[in-house]
């Protein structure tokens, strides 16, 4: 079994290498605090030089995505870099970002009239090496536009987050990862009244060269925390490799 797994891993590494993914030395691998989700990406590293796409259809989803992105921004902006947030109809409330350890004054909002301007700003901002990340809210993104953004990202290394409202036509972009974040009922400790930490269903719909998956995540005040499904008490008779007699 082990030999087979090793062989698989070796082959996978080779494929990644041919596709231009450089292996990261295991000690240097930077974690972004997403826990197991990061293992879904090639090499087990959250791709920073990439376009991440978030599908937000209803306002609950877009609020959850905002929260999730804010959690990521907290890590990306750790070194003091700024972030650009371009939108035509922004609802993000800057004062709430403090909850996610992000300094709202380091985010530059650009509220323009047309989607065309949003895309222009996004592309220009993604080329700007002094930024940590760029968030853009758009309705739709065509293949050509997404490719332009991807090219901009590859040269500068800025992380791009695209929040898009249109769920259809998702197949036609070159985004590295496509996410859908939806809120889940929160859980309080010991059944205390009130609301618990924000909890989300994180669906990784597409990862280039990785394994899409489905996770439950919580923002535990300071960092992300994965919520493990409570395992059922294993019944001895169903255990693997059981021995009878």
């Amino acid at each position, binding site marked *: 079994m082990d030999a087979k797994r090793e062989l698989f891993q070796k082959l996978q590494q080779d494929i990644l290498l041919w596709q231009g993914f450089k292996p990261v030395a295991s000690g240097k691998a930077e974690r972004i605090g997403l826990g197991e989700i990061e293992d879904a990406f090639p090499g087990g590293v959250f791709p920073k030089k990439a376009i991440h796409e978030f599908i937000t259809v209803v306002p*609950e989803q877009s*609020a959850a995505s905002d929260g999730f992105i804010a959690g990521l921004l907290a890590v990306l902006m750790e070194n003091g870099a700024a972030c650009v947030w371009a939108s035509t109809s922004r609802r993000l409330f*800057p*004062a*709430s970002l403090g909850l996610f350890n992000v300094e709202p*004054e380091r985010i530059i909002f650009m509220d323009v009239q047309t989607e065309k301007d949003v895309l222009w*700003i996004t592309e220009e*901002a993604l080329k700007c090496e002094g930024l940590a990340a760029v968030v853009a809210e758009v309705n739709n993104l065509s293949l050509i536009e997404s490719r332009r953004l991807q090219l901009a990202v590859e040269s500068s290394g800025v992380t791009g987050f695209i929040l898009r409202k249109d769920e259809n036509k998702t197949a036609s972009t070159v985004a590295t990862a496509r996410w859908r974040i939806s*809120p889940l009922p929160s859980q309080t400790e010991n059944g205390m009244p*009130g609301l618990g930490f924000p909890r989300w269903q994180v669906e990784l719909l597409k990862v280039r060269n990785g394994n899409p998956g489905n996770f439950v995540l919580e923002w535990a005040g300071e960092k992300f925390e994965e919520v493990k499904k409570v395992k059922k008490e294993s019944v001895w008779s169903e255990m693997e490799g059981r021995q009878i007699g």
Partner: protein
Amino acid sequence: MQRRFVSIWFRQLLADWQLIRRPELSGVPFVFAAPDHGRMIITAVSELALGFGVEVGMRAADAKAICPGLEVLDDKPGRSRKLLKGLGEWCVRYSPIVAIDEFAMDGLLLEATGCSHLWGGESGYLKEIVSRLKSKGYTVRVAIADTPGAAWAISHYGKVTPLIPVGGHVDALLNLVPDALRLEESVLAKLRKLGFYQIKSFIGMPRSVLRRRFGEDFLLRLGQAIGTEIEVLAALQVPVPFSERLACLEPIKTRNGIEIAINKLLENLCKRMQAEGKGLRFGVLTCYRIDGKMVQVDIGTSGASHNISHLLKLFQLKIDQIRPALGIELFVLDAPKVDDVEVPQEEMWTSKPGLDDQSVIKLLDRVAGKVGFQVIHRYLPAKRYWPERAILKAVSVTEKPNAPWRVDKPRPTELLKTPVAIEVMAIIPDHPPKFFIYKGVRHIVAKADGPERIEREWWLDHGEHRDYYQVEDEQGGRYWLFRSGHYGGENKYKWFIHGFFA
């Protein structure tokens, strides 16, 4: 360098202008007249009418009597000034300092110091002015001299040559009538009465004698003509210290050409600014077209900069707005607003990126150039509870918050610009809602926190306070709801949704 001044006298400013507008009047004698004390007094006369003996100051009725078929046109006050202003702006091509002749209101005064060599000397300079204005339809008399007063005198009354050599202006004045000194009518009458028909007859008299007889104003005008008093020209366009001009041999009408012109201007401007440690904050590019119109585009930067490639990029965004029409013959790049440039210290190790990173500032400039400064927002905390006023727009890129962001109270990730009314079922007096209907969808509340009461800022507006609840529905959606006002008061309470939590 000896200062040189040019006076341009439009002999029949209004009449020429009218002929340009209405060429059909060329065979008709006409005058302009304005009402004065119930009579129509002539204010301007055409060349043809002048031949009949019509003069400025006559009554229109009298003029009609001596000149049959005279056309009397209405004169509007301020029209000459408007015309002169337009002509003066056009004349900026000859000198950066152009002023309206305020005394007679029918001419322009130019400071030509260091300008005439561009047209191959002073005679070429004057010829160019006269012929260009003549081709437009204006008959002018010009003169160049060391003082504005002398130039004015020669252009109006000189008979020998319009080109007065350096230092020769006093001699040129000697044979002129005293009218050439721009004096009041009462002073002129006194001079004539005393038999002073030429300037040379009184120019040598002691000043105290002249002052006693003719007043201080007379001495001032005399001094301005001979150069003992300084006359300051009120320039139509105040010249900016950092300005570059580029005149083109051939009119330019391609994008590429304009770009090369801007680059050339920027090279010179940035070199000068760099030498003085200044950087551009606001720049205006004025393009003078050969059809006499001009187009302007401007750029702004959020930090002083004398980086050619950066400024060129900002202008490139604006080139589409320049309509060259038949071609552009003159580019003028002004920097009305400059600031000291902070020379950044070379970092030995790569510094921390941040808001004041050069690349970020350049990005902001580009966005501002394309879409406008008003779209760029940055927020700082305000020490207020009312959610709509809890954030403050930052004025500059580097402004730091003077208070920490509050995280002790829950605030939604997304805030609606205006709260939306919802239908709610709640147990009074202060329980959170059991369910609420927003946009036709019924949300059953599973968990809730609150209330958090936020009072109105009574010094700003009046109205009900708000009781905010943070609720979670059965699907896990988290909302910020509030009830406006007390239960059972005179004002009806209402429920609103104000935001979404992550």
